[in-house]
């Protein structure tokens, strides 16, 4: 039986969840024995295989139209979609912005910051994604497995991927269920 293919991508995230993935240290070798790691933001291959992977992992919240596209692309190319980390699961720290108006947040970030001079303006390049209300991944595409944590512990990530590699849906409880 070929090893299950795993691809990951990030949306609006701090990269902490991917750092936590690396934090599993030498067990990453064990993980490679279990799964075929394909595209990730921290390896050369950036986009999940067009002909699909078995497990897709998304970290971060959906914050712009670009994030939406990335989320949809991953969903369409994977069989099981994992929302990894509090931003992907709940909206996380990114979703603090939802307690304010989007315009106010952009103005604060690009115009009113202490380090911004009088030239400060909100970027409006058509190449850029358009900011949206912050959403959890499941508000945009169907999610099969939620792994909360900020970030989830390396042990938890290893457990989740190893369970999925062996064809089981991981059950998170006790030490592995953390919302912070």
């Amino acid at each position, binding site marked *: 039986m070929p090893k299950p293919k795993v691809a990951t991508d990030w949306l609006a995230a701090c990269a902490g969840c991917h750092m936590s993935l690396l934090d599993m240290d030498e067990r990453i070798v064990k993980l490679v024995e279990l799964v075929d790691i394909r595209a990730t933001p921290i390896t050369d291959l950036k986009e999940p295989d067009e002909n699909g992977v078995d497990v897709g992992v998304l970290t971060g919240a959906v914050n712009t139209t670009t994030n939406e596209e990335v989320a949809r692309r991953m969903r369409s190319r994977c069989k099981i979609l994992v929302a990894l980390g509090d931003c992907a699961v*709940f909206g996380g720290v990114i979703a603090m912005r939802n*307690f304010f108006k989007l315009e106010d947040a952009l103005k604060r970030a690009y115009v009113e910051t202490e380090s911004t001079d009088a030239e400060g303006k909100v970027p409006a390049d058509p190449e850029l994604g358009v900011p949206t209300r912050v959403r959890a991944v499941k508000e945009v595409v169907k999610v099969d497995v939620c792994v909360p944590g900020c970030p989830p512990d390396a042990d938890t990530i290893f457990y989740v991927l190893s369970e999925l590699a062996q064809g089981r849906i991981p059950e998170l*409880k006790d030490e592995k269920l953390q*919302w*912070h």
Partner: protein
Amino acid sequence: MITLTIDGKEVQVPEGTTVLRAAEQAGIHIPTLCDHKHLFPYGGCRMCLVEVEGARTLQPSCTLPAANGMVVYTNTPAVREARTFVLTLIFSERNHFCMYCPVSGGDCELQNAAYGQGMTEWPLQPNWQPYPVDGSHEFIVLDHNRCILCRRCVRACAELVGNFTLGVQERGASTRIIADLDVPLGESTCVSCGTCLQVCPTGAIIDRVSAYQGRLKDVTRIKSTCVGCSVGCGIEMIVRDNRLLRIEGDWDAPVNQGVLCKIGRFDPLTDQGERILTPLVRRNGGLKATTWDEALQVVASRLQTMKGRNGSGIAALASTRLPVEALYSFKQLFADKLDSGIVTSIEEGVTTALPGWVARKLGKPFEGTLDEIHNADLVLAIGVDLVENHQVAGFFVKRILPQGCKLVVIDPYDNGLHALADFSLRPKKETDYDLLVGLMQVIASLGAVRTHPIGTHDLTRHTPDNVGRTTGVPAEAIREVGRLLAEAEHPVFIYGKGLTRASFPTALEALLDLARMAGALGDTHSAVIGTKGQANSMAAYLFDLDKAFDLKGHQVAYLALGDDRPGTRLLEQIENVPFVVVQASYASPLTDRADVVLPATIWAEQAGHYVNLEGRLQEARQGLTPPRDVRSNLAIFQALAEALGITLDENWRDALQQRVWIGQPDACR
């Protein structure tokens, strides 16, 4: 007894027990949020829903009384689904993002409840409505975004503290916890006892000092006794990396049952000033750091030459915040071994000498315990302001007033209790005795004397009208209060410094006789409580450390202050003493004036025992490691004794029994 079945287990409970408590008794866990074991059942959150055979719907177990033959299931699919639904709605209401909340990771009951249901996500996203954060209070932050409206804080403020500051305004999603009529908490009637903080299940009420400083699993909890006053509340010190992060009331403590006041909970966490970290000896006019050996030698040689010179030798004074062990060594060293002219405590017996004299005259203790207040239907407080001092005892009084308990306050001065009193009597100074005898006269005239007084009082002369003229208290009020005392089934008498400060004992003896007539003092029962002063006032009394500190003619003053901060009077008293030793934790004008300064531990850095106002012997434990060159008060006395070639014993338990106790003596046995 009632027999019911919970999850197939037969449980027997007394009538009136709720299903939730019955399940607890059977070792069956039902998750809760608004329930708190020290508050009345509320039934607000619906986390505790259970299935009851024959009932149409799921029932809240926290408010459901157990009934005979009831069959309860606590973990059916319907129950589990309901719990998750309840949590789903709570999480959708406000900002419950855990990743930037100080109580996340063990301290949050909401998060723990979600873990208990195995929730890996929120079925409903929040509605993104921001709520205000009230940061106006010196110690407490009230973040409405984290609030689940369980009303534990509101109930604790009313039921446990009797302060009624917190309430609720609006309805539905706009519902908000408010202080008074919606003023900032820092400008409200809040007394900063922090009980709301202790009962809050989420991060809605947090304290500034410990927020983000350590989660449940990062900290150590040490049970101890508060040394803020003579009430002696049970506390838990929450410590991380040798830093005191937080103080909580010990729910299991017999004295306070979890409640603390500002003095016990917050004051020790505020900046206490400059610590003394090394022994200091005066050389060429200035205080210079030195070794313990040298400092002890300087003190010992001076004490040696002054030994036994009664009246012109050593005067020693110890703080009543020191533990029993230290006070006992202090007494042995200075009174028994060095035969000093004055050996006393910082309070000079102002709160204990008089009741002690009365107890010795009676040949037995005459005071009851604070528990008496819980069942009182009348509290008479005389010469004591329980709003200002001994606040937890004040909370006990305030919280039973809504149950119909009458409050009579006798105090010529401003007193926080006056505003709450049914009768606020302000007799002219030095007329307490007449007022008390006047009240006796009313009880006698009503034929309601329950126990005859011991003393002889001229009742015929003390008619309400006569007493009214002497004391300035309206005669009608005297009649009314006398009638209340005659009718009360469980009157409690609390007296304080206002009564014991007087130089003659007649008013206190009259109070005891009044209590006897009202049925509050008998051979086997006493509902008379004296508040005393500091944490170990009683121990100082039992060790005979209750004389006036009159320094005239003494050549050496030894002030064992510990972490106490005496007023300026002491500084004036030692002004002309040739040699002054100060044993203290903090720098002060007194240490500046000293010839030798010995650095001592603060309360949290030392272990020992305290005798509270009831006479209850309680243990205080060490929570913090002192700085390297700082020694415990006991260790300093022992080292000093060694330098003097004196041997001290440690039989403080026996020594405590030498004097007649004022309050319950059993605790010490």
